């Protein structure tokens, strides 16, 4: 191939990231088999591009040559385009596809600069060569770090480069969204980590940048998610949030490297990496669940759904587990990684260096806020979709999805539980990967991780106690009720006799208090028609949460460019005399310049 060898290599880090790539590809493939009706136009090509995406992701992860990496990266960027535009009859879908490809191309521009810079200084496009130059030249490393953060961050979905996620994920078929959100954006994280391994010892401010980016993405992501009433958009924004969490972890780890504190390094990277896997599990699960909902009720508009748990118990159960996991509730896998992260926060707190302590505090605040808001968001998502009474006839007549779809969801759900239960083992299993990512010796990492896994072991014991207790109470209650008797009755409606499904609390109203409180950040447009008079004719509340960054930053910039460019029109006015004059003028100008 032009200008580069075909150098591939699998080390622990690559192998680690290959897990979600291949695992999720297999499961989504299984799911998609029955999700897509055959004979529907574009089905075949969607399979082609799904596999192309998998292959490209794998190639990116194992590539050790700049040009090869770039090629694989671009294929990985192009393949999903055709997945996003699958349902191409809808204008919104085409728009989403455009946003997606435009965003990823802008990211690539930065990567091009980075790789060109490196290739010229190193004289080779081999990663080894890069490392050699970078270690020697700190300024260069800082430049490369920033370029990499922007370039790879746009793929991972770091605010404000996240704008494509909430457009692309809802548009794509659900299993494709699952793969993109579960695996593809993680490849962005992988690339960032890979660059970090080449960059040499980081100055503290890298850690701070990562931490800040992570905190921003995490908090804003979950806030925007709260404002959504389209299930898949909501999930997309949660991907932004979780990428934020991962980045916080990496940021802590980098700070640890900068301050020479192995414990921080180990905990930070471990938390980030473990969350990579966890997120790909439960986010994959949730997207598949959303797919089943769409398949059954033909919509993912929250206000149209409800009461699906009775109609699709398996899907509901899996979705519930997924929600609990992503919120970070014990004893599921989400809790393990967030435990590590908060734990590292506390470790940082106790450090004498003021900066480190501040970083610890920031981590705690961010994680606390994210945790609470995420809980609110998924209480809403699950509660509105699966509980209560159906809000539309489609939801009324929803059917449970077929075996293959259930199978892949159940597998993922089980994984959520299992990783949670064997958390300590998982943490100590991470040692090698963390060592590879951080460049510290394995023994140090292991030493730093041991207490954490120890604590987790105790925690797990507590959770078993919890489970036993709940079982106990449940049994007791049932035993009691068996004699005291159970009645069913309509719920309390303040005396109103005939409650209907439309009278239930809606998604918008559920999140309205929080949305209003953070309206400054969410900046979503509300159209409120408040009831007035004794017999109000109509009252309505509609909220449109188009992405603020897209609406207030990128779209205006784009329009400005258009206006600027259309000014050029004046030179192409169609008068041949003046065209000839251009030729003459250019000639004279050049002659003048040359004779100077």
């Amino acid at each position, binding site marked *: 191939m032009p200008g580069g060898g075909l150098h591939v290599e699998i080390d622990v880090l690559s192998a680690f990231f290959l897990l979600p790539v291949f695992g999720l590809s297999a499961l989504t493939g299984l799911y998609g088999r029955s999700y897509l009706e055959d004979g529907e136009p574009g089905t075949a090509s969607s399979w082609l591009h799904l596999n192309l995406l998998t292959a490209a992701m794998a190639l990116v992860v194992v590539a050790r040559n700049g040009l090869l990496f770039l090629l694989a990266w671009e*294929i990985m960027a192009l393949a999903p385009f055709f997945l996003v535009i699958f349902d191409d009859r809808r204008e919104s879908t085409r728009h989403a596809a455009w946003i997606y490809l*435009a965003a990823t191309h802008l990211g690539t521009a930065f990567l091009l*600069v980075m790789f*060109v810079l490196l290739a010229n200084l190193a004289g080779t496009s081999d990663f080894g060569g890069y490392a050699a130059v970078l270690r020697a030249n700190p300024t260069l490393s800082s430049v490369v770090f920033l370029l990499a953060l922007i370039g790879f961050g746009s793929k991972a979905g770091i605010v404000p480069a996240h704008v494509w996620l909430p457009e692309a994920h809802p548009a794509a078929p659900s299993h494709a969204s699952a793969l993109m959100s579960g695996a593809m954006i993680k490849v962005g994280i992988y690339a960032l980590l890979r660059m970090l391994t080449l960059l040499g010892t980081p100055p503290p401010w890298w850690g701070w940048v990562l931490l800040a980016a992570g905190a921003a993405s995490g908090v804003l992501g979950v806030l925007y998610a709260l404002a959504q009433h389209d299930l898949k958009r909501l999930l997309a924004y949660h991907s932004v949030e979780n990428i934020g969490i991962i980045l916080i972890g990496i940021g802590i780890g980098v700070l640890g490297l900068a301050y020479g504190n192995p414990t921080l390094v180990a905990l930070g990277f471990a938390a980030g990496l473990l969350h990579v896997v966890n997120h790909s599990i439960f986010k994959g699960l949730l997207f598949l669940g959303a797919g089943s909902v769409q398949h059954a009720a033909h919509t993912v508009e929250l206000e149209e759904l409800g009461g699906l748990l009775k109609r699709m118990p398996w899907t509901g159960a899996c979705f519930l587990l997924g929600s609990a996991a992503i919120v970070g509730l014990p004893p599921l896998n989400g809790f393990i990684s967030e435990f590590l992260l908060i734990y590292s926060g506390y470790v940082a707190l106790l450090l004498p260096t003021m900066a480190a302590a501040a970083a610890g505090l920031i981590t705690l605040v961010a994680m606390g806020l994210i945790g609470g808001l995420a809980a609110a968001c998924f209480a809403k998502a699950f509660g509105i979709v699966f509980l209560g009474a159906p809000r539309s006839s489609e939801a009324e007549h929803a059917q449970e999805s077929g075996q293959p779809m259930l199978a892949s969801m159940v597998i993922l759900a089980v994984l959520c539980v299992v990783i949670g239960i064997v958390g300590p083992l998982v943490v100590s299993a991470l040692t090698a990967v963390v060592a590879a990512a951080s460049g510290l010796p394995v023994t140090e990492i292991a030493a730093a991780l041991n207490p954490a896994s120890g604590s987790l072991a105790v925690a797990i014991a507590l959770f078993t106690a919890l489970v036993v207790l709940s079982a106990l109470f449940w049994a007791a209650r049932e035993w009691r009720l068996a004699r005291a008797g159970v009645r069913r009755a309509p719920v309390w409606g303040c005396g109103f006799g005939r409650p209907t499904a439309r009278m239930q609390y809606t998604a918008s109203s559920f999140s309205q208090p929080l949305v209003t409180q953070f309206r400054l950040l969410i900046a979503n447009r509300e159209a409120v028609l408040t009831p007035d008079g004794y017999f109000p004719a109509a009252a309505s509340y509609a909220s449109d949460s188009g992405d603020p960054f897209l609406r207030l930053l990128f779209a205006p910039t784009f329009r400005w460019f258009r206006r600027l460019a259309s000014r050029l029109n004046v030179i192409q006015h169609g008068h041949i005399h003046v065209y000839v004059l251009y030729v003459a003028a250019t*000639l004279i100008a050049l002659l003048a310049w*040359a004779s100077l």
Partner: protein
Amino acid sequence: MTPGYAIDAMLIVAIAGALLCLAARPRQVLAMAIAVSAVELGLAASLWVTVLAKSHVTAADDLFFVDAFSTFHLVVLCLVFLLCSLFAWDYFVDGGEFTLAVGTARRFGALWLGSFAAMMLVLVSNNLGIMWVGMEATTLLTAFLISLHPDRLSLEAMWKYLLICSVGIAFAFVGTIFTAASVQEGLGADALLWTRLAAPEARLDPTLMTFAFVFVLVGYGTKAGLAPIHSWLPDAHSQAPAPVSAMFSGFLLNTALYCILRYVPLVRRALGSGFADHLLVFFGALSILVGAGFIVFQRDAKRLLAYSSVEHLGIIALGYGLGPLGSFAALFHTLNHSLSKSLAFFAVGRLGQRYGTHDMGTLSGALRTDRVWGLGLLGSLLALIGAAPFAIFMSEYQLLRAAAREGAWLVLVLFLAAGAVVFITALRQLIDMAFGDAHSSMPKARNASSSILLVVGVIGLLLFLGLWMPPWLGDAIGRAADAAGARL
């Protein structure tokens, strides 16, 4: 046969074909075009092999001279003509109201092969005067190809093309004269022989070479469509029949650029490397920016492609201005651009025939109504806006590397910015053209296997070159790049 005759043969075959066309029936004309360009491609290939073996070939007592640089262009030229002729068959034979009357067909054939011959003359001539003659000839011959179906718009476009380019070419001749005059010791009648001028012992007067290059740059630059003297280009491209537009963008512009490039080594020798390179970089960057700017608000598909040609010619010029690595990238880019741009014009032309317009608002849902050419449109435009893994991505990457190596960071950033603007805006149009809603009235197209072959072949080639450059090709382009810098 000795290679020298290959050159003569190429010219003779083309001219003979042109003359024969004057007495042929339409289908014969189109068949003739295909046959001739196929033969020429063969000859060019054989010539290429010999040149790669023995660095250069001369014929007709030094009147003709080809080195790796010109043979590379020859091969691309023949390739483009072959593709265009193949497409012309589709376009004219079952093109509805586009089918040719006998007179028109003969005129088309004669002019088509005539301009083919003229371009070859430009590429093979060693005498700068003859090169100029050939260039002027292409202008005069292609003028009536634009208004093959004369109507107001095509006549307007044709007149603009004719007048502006003639004036430009006239300036180029002034440049040629200055070059000849700048030879201090009298080479006598050989004062216009490139081989003599480029020879190490030739001493050229700096002042005159300065003026000469300025005139040449402006003169041939007008024909090559460098901004800001590209004004004729969008009109001509949008009004000409699709095969002609494809040939214009596919190679006519490159021929003009080739002429400029022939002067660059002379200027380098006379004035050191700075002067010419800076001018190339400047005009290249300017063309990129202007092209990108105009692409942003285009409505007409063919005009969009025309401005994209301005941009890409700018890229190529920029490359030549950026040292050996840049020249390599520029040459590779020439090949990629010619292939993808021709295909793009084919697709737009065919779809235009079906939709009866080139307005991108109306021209939507191509993939639904016409899978083959819809695919062609999608593939070629994706390639043109620089999406990987198409070959253009690779040549642009190499260009960036060249820019970085020269330390031209400003240019690099401008290039990337313009590229991003083009990508984003053109993609918006492309998505609706390819995937949008089609008129329900539009019947599904049934395409000849030849056109399927054309589309798949070209896209395949672009993908192949994007993923893997065969060593021999890389070597050949490298040799061409050296020849371009007269590092013989």
